[in-house]
């Protein structure tokens, strides 16, 4: 079946956050800090307030009332202290977008600047060991004796990989339309990955009971993690609307998104791997250095996937964080796994070359029986199957491992492989199913951010009810529906789907209505290591003249439980791989050391792949039955596609050129260094 909302999306009728027609609407435009650290001395709004159409200027001069415990990025306009360049210090509200923007431009802000520090380095004196890493993993892990394992290794590598600041850049900029009813209930049309949690967070930030806030997000123009937590624009819309007594739209510009909607922390990753003469790992160490803001801690779980990948008698992982005068990093598609597996899978390739082993074979030889760090059995694990099937489809057996020996005219040709993994978890969710006009209405406050949740849940409900999908009407994207977790962590379908199945089962029993809350069910899930796995293969061309790199083909083979919808699944996988291609070759936000904040804050400078970059991306999957996961037997598929792509591409660049670039992105400039 095609996407349920396909028709409204291709006719332009799908309504995103600031597209709801609302009478008497006004527009707010933020003013951002021009210093990276210090204090706002004064906000002079007199000139702005005198401009045509201007209704209000809110600022730190007269902080809008928020709950006393509002904190971090959401304590909008509460403090004169500046934590990073680009932080919100004021907002202008006017009758039109043009007037609001001109007024914001006329707000005069003076500062008392202080020295800032925005540079992550592995020897930063401020590095510390956070309590946990996102969301609640142990910061460090240690099994066996890594030093002894390395000392006794026949082959070892000790390499440092880095990844830059990366921005999610969903196509729909973060935006919210807020309006208050006469009874004092707040309605926010927000661009969010979860209406229940967004409602709770907005309510808590404003000091309101959750019942006084409703969040609606029927269509969301992508998020990739950046809309998984409430962002400041939503709070800004709410307080601005309260101040002017009219509905307010806040639509961030692309440039503003770079500053206040989160990003992937840069990482510095040191990997030390040792193997015996047969290519069996003797030690694995993965240490990640990362940044957060002074406002709040976000510690990406970069080395965590290494705890699940390969059998080794000695395994150590660690994370160190430094708080800088920067915006707070946050979730970006596969936080942890994406940058961490870039490091690990690149280092594995280096180890394969050092040991004279085929990189597929090296991984197969180190397949663990149980999860290496926890010792738990896997609910299912088919990494070896993915590697073998991918090798077969890709023609890997014809590969000459020698680097820098294939050439087509000016173009050097190479191939590379890397493994993918992503946890297969679920969270409690509620859902309701009822009979309506002879058909079935299924309601859950899930979010469809482009994943196809609406379609997948329709299918799940239809299958449970034993009816045609056309008879199921699915409602999501509204916090007035039964509470549901965010579309994040590749947990959406597993979490919401479990509740939908239970609600539909109950309806089937009683014939009229079913409602479910899977809190108890999820608690009783057996203790198992639950992960999806995959293998990605890349073929690249590298110009010996210019250093340009083009990806000729990408193949992903995944084992992700039962695939609920082949078309949607393929789109998720190839979408993730396409984003991974961008990470490998072009995506990079620069930090402005002199003035703080970021540089390249638009889509002409922060390059994401265009159509011409993506000639051939294919994804297939293995049948995988796993009854321990959830009623559908499914694993999440939204993130695993981006995990491993950059390593596969980087490994292919090495195979093509004989040169190892260890700092993403791999650009012509770095190729030409050699």
């Amino acid at each position, binding site marked *: 079946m*095609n996407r349920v909302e396909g028709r409204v999306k291709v006719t332009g009728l799908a309504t995103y956050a600031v597209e709801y027609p609302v009478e008497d609407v006004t527009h707010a435009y933020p003013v951002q800090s021009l210093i990276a650290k210090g204090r706002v001395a004064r906000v002079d709004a007199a000139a702005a307030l005198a401009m045509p159409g201007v209704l209000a200027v809110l600022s730190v001069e007269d902080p809008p009332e928020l709950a006393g415990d509002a904190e971090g990025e959401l304590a909008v306009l509460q403090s004169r202290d500046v934590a990073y360049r680009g932080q919100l210090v004021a907002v202008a509200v006017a009758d039109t*977008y043009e007037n609001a923007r001109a007024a914001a431009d006329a707000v005069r802000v003076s500062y008392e600047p202080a020295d800032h520090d925005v540079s992550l380095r592995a020897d930063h004196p401020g590095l510390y060991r956070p309590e946990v890493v996102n969301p609640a993993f142990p910061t460090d892990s240690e099994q066996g004796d890594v030093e002894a394992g390395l000392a006794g290794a026949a082959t070892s590598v000790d390499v440092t990989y880095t990844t830059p600041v990366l921005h999610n850049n*969903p196509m729909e900029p973060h935006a919210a339309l807020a309006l208050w009813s006469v009874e004092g209930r707040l309605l926010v049309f927000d661009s969010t990955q979860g209406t229940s949690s967004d409602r709770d967070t907005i309510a808590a930030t404003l000091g309101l009971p959750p019942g006084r806030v409703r969040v609606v997000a029927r269509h969301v123009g*992508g998020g990739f993690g950046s809309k998984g937590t409430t962002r400041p624009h939503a709070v800004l819309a709410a307080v601005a609307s309260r101040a002017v007594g009219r509905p307010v739209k806040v639509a961030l510009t692309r440039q503003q998104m770079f500053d206040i909607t989160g990003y992937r922390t840069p990482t510095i990753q040191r990997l030390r791997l040792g193997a015996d003469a047969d290519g069996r790992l003797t030690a694995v160490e993965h240490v990640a250095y990362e940044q957060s803001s002074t406002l709040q801690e976000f510690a990406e779980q970069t080395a965590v996937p290494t705890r699940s990948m390969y059998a080794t008698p000695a395994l150590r992982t660690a994370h160190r964080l430094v708080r800088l005068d920067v915006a707070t990093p946050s979730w970006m598609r596969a936080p942890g796994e994406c940058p961490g597996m870039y490091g690990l899978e690149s280092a594995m390739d280096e180890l394969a070359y050092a040991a004279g082993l085929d990189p597929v074979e090296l991984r197969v030889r180190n397949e663990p029986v149980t999860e290496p760090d926890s010792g738990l059995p896997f609910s299912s694990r088919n990494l070896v199957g993915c590697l073998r099937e991918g090798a077969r489809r890709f023609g890997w057996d014809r590969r000459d491992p020698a680097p820098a020996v294939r050439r087509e005219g000016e173009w050097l040709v190479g191939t590379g492989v890397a493994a993918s993994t992503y946890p297969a978890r679920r969270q409690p969710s509620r859902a309701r199913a009822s009979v309506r006009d002879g058909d079935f209405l299924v309601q859950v406050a899930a979010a469809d951010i*482009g994943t196809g949740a609406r379609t997948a849940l329709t299918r799940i409900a239809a299958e449970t009810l034993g009816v045609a999908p056309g008879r199921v009407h699915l409602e999501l994207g509204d916090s007035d529906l039964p509470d549901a977790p965010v579309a994040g962590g590749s947990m959406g379908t597993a979490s919401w789907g479990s509740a939908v199945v239970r609600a539909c089962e109950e309806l089937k029993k009683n014939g009229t209505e079913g409602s479910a809350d899977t809190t108890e069910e999820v608690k009783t899930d057996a203790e198992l290591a639950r992960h999806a796995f995959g293998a990605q293969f890349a073929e690249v061309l590298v110009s010996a003249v210019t250093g340009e790199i083009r990806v000729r083909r990408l193949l992903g083979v995944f084992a992700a439980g039962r695939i609920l919808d082949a078309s*949607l699944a*393929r789109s998720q996988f190839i979408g993730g791989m396409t984003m991974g291609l961008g990470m490998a070759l072009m995506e990079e936000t620069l930090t402005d050391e002199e003035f703080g904040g970021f540089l390249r804050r638009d*889509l002409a400078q922060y390059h994401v792949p265009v*159509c011409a970059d993506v000639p051939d991306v294919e994804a297939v999957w293995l049948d995988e039955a796993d009854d321990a996961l959830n009623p559908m037997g499914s694993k999440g598929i939204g993130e695993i596609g981006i995990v491993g792509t950059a390593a596969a591409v980087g490994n292919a660049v090495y195979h093509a050129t004989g040169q190892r670039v260890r700092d993403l992105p791999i650009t012509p400039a770095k190729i030409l260094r050699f």
Partner: protein
Amino acid sequence: MDISLHVNGVPRALAVDPRMSLLDLLRERLGLTGSKKGCDHGQCGACTVLIDGRRANACLALAVAMDGSEITTVEGLANGEQLHPLQAAFVEHDAFQCGYCTPGQLCSAAGMLGEPGPSAVTEDLLADPDLTPAEIRERMSGNLCRCGAYVNIVAAISEVAR
């Protein structure tokens, strides 16, 4: 300033702020929110509409400069209930995920199919090339899709271009 233009065949006469873009005119004044604002600087293509039959970035066009123009937006592509072949092909090929770039992709493709001449990847500059996948990819590179639906977008357009 007073302007008059046709939008999806409907004549419109409006007074506009000279600072207003065609995109904001469509979205904020005419309620045609199908055209999307992804960057507001011509860098993403989400706002692509047809101006006098040619694809263009509505964010870079001042509304006031559109006086006398004929604008077609994604809302004007279908013929009543009958989807435009590109719209139908996008649905069939799952050529979108979040849908936010989709209206721009569709208008861009509709304009592109009628554009004469070579592209940057055409070997023979003097020929009017067939719209191979490589040609479509190059010609559609002004429309970003962060969900990464390019492979399906090219398949959908290829079907219509045949």
